């Protein structure tokens, strides 16, 4: 057997025989996937509840629209009290031709939504009362594929994160522990080049990442979560591979600087954890403040995330490959070159 193959085999055995590593590689990210998948499964369907008093065409139209959940009260005073206590964002009373709306200023978002809906419906009812056909009609529809449920962006995000964490920790900890235990020195005493050691570690990292991807996508595709891949999913492969290499290079850099496994674990966490939050792994980055979105654009995980989401679930065409691939390739080259420069076979 060649040195390359046997080193890769030794590393792979060291990997799968370590229960803690297996847990953090497969089970831990999967837990996030399951928790977020279940948490956001019904996101968007949650409706605002308001207090209503009385009856009439407006309340009837509101009920029929199904946009709001209604809670009935006997008197206007009871309903207003409920709003004043902050239990409900607004109350709507209908008495003959008068529609009364009382809302909580403290809950601007929800009361604003309620006011918008109520005035819109009042307008429709008024227009219908004139007996004239409406002059303006609205054609509204959401732009996403109707299947773009939360699981569609949660899965690529968690997958990129899980793969990135494994690549960084795998590279850093192997390097530090082999240096500390003098395995690197022992290898250096054999007629084997650094490139052989490095490439065997890369192959193991990629192999593990592929297994992770298959598991995460498989679990996401279970009926309970309902992930559906688009026809261009295979275009995500170059982004996926470049992402692994970028994080492997980061791990090599961490491993070159750290003398102990504890230090390497800490440093790797400092690199990866904030990146996970800033790159849309745990929540969609579009909802983050603009400065955070700007920061996230320099992070490799953001581009890995975006690139993979684009092809896995957004169904974009090959021209969307350019940006993520260029950014990730730049990370591989620059970080890899620095890591190679500061690499040490042994502690001084």
């Amino acid at each position, binding site marked *: *057997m*060649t*040195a390359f*193959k*046997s*080193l890769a*085999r*030794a*590393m792979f*055995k*060291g990997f799968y*025989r*370590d229960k803690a590593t297996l847990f953090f590689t497969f089970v831990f990210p999967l837990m996030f996937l399951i928790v977020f998948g279940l948490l956001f499964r019904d996101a968007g369907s949650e409706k605002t509840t308001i207090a209503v008093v009385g009856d009439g065409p407006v309340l009837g139209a509101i009920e029929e629209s199904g946009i709001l959940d209604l809670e009935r009260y006997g008197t206007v005073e009871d309903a207003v009290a409920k709003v004043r206590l902050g239990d409900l964002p607004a109350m709507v009373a209908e008495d003959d031709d008068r529609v009364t709306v009382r809302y909580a200023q403290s809950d601007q978002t929800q009361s604003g939504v309620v006011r918008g809906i109520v005035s819109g419906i009042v307008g429709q009812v008024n227009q219908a009362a004139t007996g004239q056909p409406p002059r303006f009609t609205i054609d509204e529809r959401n732009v996403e594929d109707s299947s773009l449920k939360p699981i569609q962006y949660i899965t690529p995000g968690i997958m990129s994160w899980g793969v990135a964490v494994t690549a960084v920790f795998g590279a850093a900890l192997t390097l530090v*522990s082999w240096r500390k*235990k*003098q*395995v690197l*020195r*022992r*290898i*250096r*005493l*054999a*007629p*084997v080049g650094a490139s052989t050691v490095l490439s065997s570690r890369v192959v193991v990292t990629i192999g593990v990442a592929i297994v992770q991807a298959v598991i995460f996508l498989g679990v996401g595709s279970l009926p309970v979560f309902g992930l559906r891949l688009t026809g261009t999913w295979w275009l995500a492969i170059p982004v996926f591979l470049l992402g692994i290499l970028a994080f492997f290079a980061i791990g090599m850099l961490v491993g070159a600087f750290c003398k102990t496994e504890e230090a390497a674990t800490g440093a790797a966490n400092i690199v990866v954890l904030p990146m996970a939050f800033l790159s849309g792994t745990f929540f969609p980055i579009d909802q983050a403040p603009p400065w955070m979105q700007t920061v996230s654009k320099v992070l490799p995980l953001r581009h890995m995330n975006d690139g993979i989401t684009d092809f896995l679930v957004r169904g974009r065409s090959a021209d969307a490959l350019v940006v993520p691939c260029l950014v990730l390739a730049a990370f591989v080259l620059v970080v890899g070159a620095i890591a190679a420069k500061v690499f040490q076979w042994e502690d001084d």
Partner: protein
Amino acid sequence: MTDTEHSAAIVVEDVRKAYGNLKAVDGVSLTVAEGEFFGILGPNGAGKTTTLEIIEGLREPDSGSVRLLGQSPWPRNVALLPRIGVQLQASAFFEKLTAREQLETFASLYGVSARRAHEMLDLVGLADKADTREGKLSGGQRQRLSIACALVHDPDVLFLDEPTAALDPQARRNLWDVLRAIQERGKTILYTTHYLDEAEILCDRVAIMDNGRLLAMDAPATLVRGLDAPTRVILERGSLSVVDAGALPGADDVTEDELSLTIATRNPADLLSALAERRALAGLQVRTATLEDVFLGLTGREYRA
């Protein structure tokens, strides 16, 4: 190439290495013949390991020259690497692999077949531990495994750094048998130890090192003989009076402490037969000089490992 170089596996000439103000190796010269079992002895911090690492090609000396099998080991000499085997002070193993897998992995680094790996397990007496993970081996077994890993590619020269450190007496003795078996295969062995008694038993020649310098270098028996130290005959206190003991044939000097009476002699045969005639042999011990006495004579201080 001269004749002396041809038969010498290792030639070290005036090698120096300093770390800041500390002169770790301070002008060491030595020659190890092919097939020789050579020991570098000395207390911890004497510079043994640094000397070994310079010869192995792991460190660059500040000055001086090293020829290992006729070649320079520094900078990393890939042609030389398959001909040397190095067992490191710390046990350098791959995580979670069994004894057999460790050996097979190291064998493959040299392009050697897995069959060699199994032979090595037999040689170091670990055949029954082939499928045990490295972490579950005892200290002595791990030490023997690391020697097997150093030998797996059949090198000509074997470097062992403190192979018996931190082993219990039984494990040490087992390892001695392994080392002798390796020497019988014609390997040149250069090893370091801080056990002087062990070096005396195993080595063809030893170099005694202290503070980065070699103080003496020769066969252990020659070093001890050169010391010209008296033999000490030790008896239970009270077997003889100090005066009577001093009057015995061959007795040079008599001392007494709470437990024993010690008679120094350069003629132990006469002294012992005189003691036997008087039936005064209770608690008899006879001590000849050891390498520890050599160390004491060279440095003026007691040997402390």
